[in-house]
């Protein structure tokens, strides 16, 4: 194994790591902002509201992410003139923009579906109690349903973020220099294929288990009321 090549390419791989984190972070944040209204629309009883959202979710969950990325990055070229006229071509020309856009839409669809399940999983008694206290509409959602739904959705959402982090490796195919992109370029130049891909894999492993660790911490924080009280916990300490 050519350790010198691994060592020499580490700085560039770390730059790639930063690109991976950026793209994943942006998509996760924007995707979540889209997913909440989408999930609310999805549970609506109005056909005109939930059906388009259902279609969006079904399409993005039923097709490979790679197709979605190509559809946005290469596919937009077919509408270059139209996009240029409305001034959007400057965005769609950029691989970075297309990568974030497709990852965002993809994660928004998956997250909306997770949130839908969680919203429908909120115990009816809690909603009834809130209604009995005089809450309704937006207040009911803000105070009772959404906080509870987020807590229910958290483990599944952790998985989704981990999937997205790994899926971000696909942006290397549209020329972006993330971890995989850097590894591919250096490997093609030095022929040190397994050295570089193994190093890339190791970086992803660290990132993935880092994300899982952070999300578990948050899960612990937001489920404090479900654990035994501290004094009771002391009694069972050392287990």
């Amino acid at each position, binding site marked *: *194994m050519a350790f010198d090549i691994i060592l020499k390419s580490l700085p560039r791989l770390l730059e790639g790591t930063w690109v991976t984190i950026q793209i994943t972070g942006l998509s996760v944040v924007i995707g979540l902002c889209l997913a909440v209204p989408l999930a609310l629309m999805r549970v609506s009883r109005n056909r005109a509201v939930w059906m388009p959202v259902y279609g969006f979710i*079904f*399409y993005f969950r*039923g*097709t*490979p*992410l*790679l*197709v*979605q990325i*190509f*559809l946005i990055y*290469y*596919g*937009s*070229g*077919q*509408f270059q003139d139209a996009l240029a006229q409305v001034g959007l071509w400057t965005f769609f020309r950029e691989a970075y923009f297309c990568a974030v856009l497709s990852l965002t839409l993809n994660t928004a669809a998956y997250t909306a579906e997770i949130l839908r399940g969680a919203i429908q999983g909120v115990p009816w008694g809690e909603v009834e109690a809130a209604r009995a206290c005089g809450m309704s509409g937006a207040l009911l959602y803000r105070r009772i349903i959404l906080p509870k739904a987020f807590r229910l959705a958290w483990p599944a959402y952790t998985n989704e973020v981990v999937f997205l982090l*790994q*899926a*971000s*490796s*696909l942006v*290397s*195919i549209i020329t972006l220099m993330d971890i*995989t992109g850097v*590894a*591919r370029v250096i*490997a093609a130049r030095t*022929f*040190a*294929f*397994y050295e570089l*891909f*193994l190093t*890339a*894999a190791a970086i*992803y*492993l660290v990132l*993935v*288990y880092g994300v899982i660790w952070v999300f578990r911490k948050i899960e612990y924080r937001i489920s404090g009321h479900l654990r035994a009280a501290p004094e009771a916990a002391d009694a069972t300490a050392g287990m």
Partner: protein
Amino acid sequence: MIDLQGYGWLLLKGAQLTVLVGLASMAIAVFLGLIGAWGKLAKPRAAQVVAGTYTTVIRGIPELVLILLVYYGVPTLIQDITAAAGREVIVDLNPFTAGVATIGFIYGAFATEVFRGAYLAVPKGQIEAARAMGMSAALTFRRVTLPQMWRFALPGLGNVWMVLIKATALISVIQLPELMRNADIASRATRMPFTFYFAASLLYLLITIASMILQQKAEVWASRGVRRA
């Protein structure tokens, strides 16, 4: 309808290969999943460690990186090892083998968790009863545990299949002429990328919908011995 300019057949042939690659990978994944689940539940510490490492490591690495690692990395690794031993061996993996092996290997890790859960869902009392009737461990597994495991495993396996079939699109990166790759070829030739990637995406949707229907049928079949209220 979308005008595919005579490239429709190319897409359909690609879709055919996609399904074939998917089925072959799924077979490997199920096989590895059963072994992996055995490893996780078995008594030998070594088996637990190997199965645990397998699922932990595989689920933390992107599919694309693993595909590239297997397709480009494994031949060079074998060449380096044999060169160190003073021999020259040229290994040439074809994209089909490399792709199917990698996808199967990755989703074997997910199938492992599915089968583990399914095994644990079979009531202990039934296994004890079978043993008490004098069935050997192997016979108990074949007659009592396995038939019921399918029932508990099917929803999970269905999910694995849905993710797996979409993951096969990544094999296009190593030039296997499946659906994605053929859509790529057609879109370059006609300069109509949107049309062809969109058509490809519809074919993937079709595969997904067909799988959902089949999954429902399979679940009904697997729970034929269960009384419903």
